[in-house]
């Protein structure tokens, strides 16, 4: 079955129903391996102790937060350029998931940094960039919710997503610059300057697990959005039908 066939919502729903159980199983399996690697195989940090293992949550979440915006950017092009019917469904479903992962990244970063910094937050370059990304996600979700018609909302959100995609590197660069401006010495690099192989493998495993989690959630969310739109269409049809019936009756 070619990808183009999935453009039909009904076909997509069938596809989702078939694939979801497998995805859930794969996600659970990947997490089992990933957690085992992270908790038992990876060594403690000589300085931070076991708390360094929060990194195995924090880094994949950061990666997914950015990956999600990339996915939404592709979806945005799908809506605006190729007019793919399910592109805006994919975009709308992805936004809250991306926001959640970004928030988790901030939260785990805060928890991780607390023992080291003594505070829950530090305005360092990386965390701050992720905070800005989080605010952009929330803005995008607000935009989705503010327009009733899904088609119009989709196009508006697509434009904002593309603008965001172009701006994110610029924001990252300027935040880095702002940070060096005020803190010339490199204070604290989460994750350390080099990554040893004993950490790399568990990290990779967790990254795969989280990505599978994202795909599972995204697929389920897309299915829900399609169903939601169906309910909306049915409601509108009921309203139109009432009007049609009255027209027919008044002429009878």
């Amino acid at each position, binding site marked *: 079955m070619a990808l183009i066939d999935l453009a039909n919502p009904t076909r997509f729903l069938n596809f989702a129903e078939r694939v979801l159980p497998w995805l859930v199983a794969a996600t659970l399996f990947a997490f089992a391996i990933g957690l085992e690697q992270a908790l038992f195989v990876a060594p403690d940090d000589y300085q931070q102790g076991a708390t360094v293992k929060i990194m195995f949550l924090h880094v994949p979440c950061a990666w997914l937060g950015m990956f999600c915006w990339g996915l939404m950017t592709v979806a945005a092009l799908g809506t605006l350029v190729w007019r793919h019917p399910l592109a805006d469904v994919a975009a709308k479903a992805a936004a809250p998931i991306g926001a959640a992962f970004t928030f988790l990244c901030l939260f785990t970063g805060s928890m991780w940094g607390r023992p080291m910094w003594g505070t829950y937050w530090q305005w360092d370059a990386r965390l701050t960039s992720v905070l800005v990304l989080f605010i952009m996600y929330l803005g995008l979700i607000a935009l989705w919710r503010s327009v009733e018609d899904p088609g119009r909302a989709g196009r508006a959100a697509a434009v904002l997503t593309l603008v965001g995609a172009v701006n994110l590197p610029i924001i990252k660069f300027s935040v880095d610059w702002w940070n060096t401006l005020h803190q010339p010495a490199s204070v604290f690099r989460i994750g350390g300057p080099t990554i040893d192989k004993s950490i790399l493998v568990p990290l990779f495993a967790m990254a795969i697990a989280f990505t599978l989690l994202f795909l599972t959630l995204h697929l389920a969310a897309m299915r829900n959005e399609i169903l939601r739109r169906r309910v909306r269409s049915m409601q509108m049809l009921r*309203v139109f039908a009432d009007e049609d019936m009255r027209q027919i*009756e008044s002429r009878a």
Partner: protein
Amino acid sequence: MRGGREVFEGVNFTVAGGEALAVTGRNGAGKTTLLRLIAGLLEPAQGRLELTGGAADATLPEQAHYLGHRDALKPALSVQENLAFWHAFFGGHDASAAGALETVGLADLAGLPAAYLSAGQRRRLAIARLIAAPRPIWLLDEPTAALDTAGQGRLVELMRAHLDHGGLIVAATHGPLGLGGVKELRLGDPVPPAATGGGEKSAP
């Protein structure tokens, strides 16, 4: 006065309980302005409005329903929620909200978002407001606009029932109301010099 411009002058009329007044005239003659004056939404530059009878402690606007060009519907709320709000706001009796929806034929759509309604359905929902919370005076601005034949017929029935109960109707309209026995006030025509500005209404 509207926007500093005098809209009409020398308007004189009396309407009694059980009577209907049709306000006619070309566009811009001031039909809407007159209705809004009676509704208390505008102050007359000159002249007065007098209400005899009716509830002693309520002003004229508090005893009137105004059906304007806009339907006062919130798209975010359902059909039922919209009507229930006005019913509670204007102090209707318990059962009348659901009954009103039935009467205008929107009971089937009660739970659906008001955003999806057509112009005619919105008009019918606005009319439901009039019967969900009874008030003696009805001020209607082109009430049959956007309604199909069946809807217009239904509205005429409702107006007839209102008049039979002693209510009063002042309606701005382009064509005939279909009620029969309706007084007419034509705006925009030259006024005989003896007439003075003013209007009177009496309600039971």
